[in-house]
């Protein structure tokens, strides 16, 4: 009669433990299921114990494969985007304010596990810091005039929320779509996923939070200096990330893409500064926010 599957399994286990006792440092391969082929990118049934150098790459491959197992209607699918620890989030924030040449944010800091926690809460914090700091600066500007009656200007929160969240989602969508369309022909390196693009844009907005708080100080030269610093830091994070993805393309397309990214980023920061931090002498100026929110803006002039 045939040996039952349980007997076979038990024997294998004994053999394996004997071998391990003899040589504890050997690399082991354990498989569940009966598939004879063992591609590394298969869905999560395969565990590989390898030495540390190879483990990083392999685990990132596996993570990429594993992530698509749940459908988008399950809770676990969204939980995979929040799989970060406190230290990881802090590292990513640090990586976004210290762009060094050659340090691709996505490759080095994200390491193929983008999260949505950082982008989302950075955007929320930015919305409130813009609205609150803008309100404070308007108040400080008008402190001298006797007719001024303090107003909380709460509608600014709504406007800030619309602008920031549209920027943080539509621009990465456009950039990702464009890069994926251009990459169709090459297939050399894996393009950035949509989530990674959203992630890098979200973290790049972090520098604007302390900038917006410092904008309360009523010195015009200081505000422009701060904008410049913030744009350089935040823009270089984006440029360093996207340049490797476009440099294989034709020169003109590569430059045009990078230039568009920088220009949009500049428009966002200048627009925010002009709308939320108006100087006392100007009448409220219609904002220079990015094109796709222009329609909303024109209705809001008081």
């Amino acid at each position: 009669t045939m040996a039952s599957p349980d007997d076979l399994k038990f024997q294998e286990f004994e053999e394996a433990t004997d071998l391990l006792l003899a040589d504890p440092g050997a690399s082991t391969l354990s498989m569940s299921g009966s598939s004879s082929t063992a591609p590394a990118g298969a869905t999560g049934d395969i565990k590989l114990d390898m030495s540390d150098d190879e483990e990083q790459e392999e685990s990132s491959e596996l993570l990429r494969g594993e992530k698509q197992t749940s459908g988008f209607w399950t809770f676990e699918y969204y939980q995979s985007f929040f799989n970060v620890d406190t230290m990881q989030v802090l590292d990513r924030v640090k990586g976004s304010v210290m762009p060094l040449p050659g340090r691709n944010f996505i490759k080095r800091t994200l390491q193929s596990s983008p999260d949505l926690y950082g982008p989302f809460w950075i955007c929320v914090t930015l919305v409130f810091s813009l609205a609150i700091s803008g309100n404070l600066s308007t108040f400080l500007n008008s402190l001298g005039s006797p007719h001024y009656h303090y107003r909380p200007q709460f509608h600014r929160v709504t406007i800030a929320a619309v602008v920031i969240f549209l920027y943080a989602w539509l621009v990465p969508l456009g950039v990702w779509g464009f890069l994926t369309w251009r990459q169709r022909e090459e297939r050399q390196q894996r393009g950035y996923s949509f989530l990674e693009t959203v992630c890098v844009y979200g973290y790049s907005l972090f520098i604007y939070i302390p900038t917006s708080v410092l904008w309360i100080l009523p010195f015009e030269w200081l505000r422009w200096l701060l904008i410049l610093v913030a744009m350089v830091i935040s823009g270089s994070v984006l440029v360093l990330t996207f340049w490797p993805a476009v440099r294989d393309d034709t020169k003109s397309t590569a430059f045009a893409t990078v230039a568009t990214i920088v220009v949009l980023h500049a428009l966002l920061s200048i627009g925010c500064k002009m709308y939320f931090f108006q100087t006392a002498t100007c009448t409220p100026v219609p904002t220079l926010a990015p094109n796709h929110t222009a329609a909303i803006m024109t209705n809001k002039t008081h």
Partner: protein
Amino acid sequence: MAEVEETGKLMFADLSDVSISGDIPVQGEINVPVGTPSQDKEYSTLDEPVKDTILRDLKAVGKKFVHVMYPKKSSALLRDWDLWGPLLLCVTLALMLQGGSVDRKDDGGPQFAEVFVIIWFGSVIITLNSKLLGGTISFFQSLCVLGYCIMPLTVAMVVCRLVLLGGSWGFSFIVRLIVVTASFSWSTFASTAFLADSQPPNRKALVVYPVFLFYFVIGWMILTFSPSA
């Protein structure tokens, strides 16, 4: 089949001479397994006067208020959650934030709907955030805790409105600033005390930060409330 009938008749043959005349009283106890006491209460609450029902709910809400004021790790807020308290606090806060500033359409403080949306939408988003990060607290328990911990801020709002009767600036502003800061810290501390246990250990800060931001924004709305001239 016939065999079974035969054996049956044989088995009962011994009893065939026992006659049962009249009623034989049966003694003993019948124990019906009863469910948990609360299930019993549900069935019996239909008969009690309305005053009792309302008072019982009010007492539960009041007990939770006391637990928020002295935040120890009590399970009352978590196990017997209810959303009456948060609704009451939210409506009170939103109503008290009205009636400020000259312009009601623009440039003014938050409208009633804005306060409502911020509190409830904010609580839902914070709860989703903590669940997505791997927290084990249930959805409504978390809403309950976040809502009840708004209580110090509502108290601060009442105090601020009283202080504002005596003027807006200078000393009154300092007092309001101190009161709002103290109550916002109290709210954050209280809700963290209740929520912290259910989070994975290396993500506690990731869950506490949105709570901090939430109460900070509510505190900002209270502090910047300026009555009409």
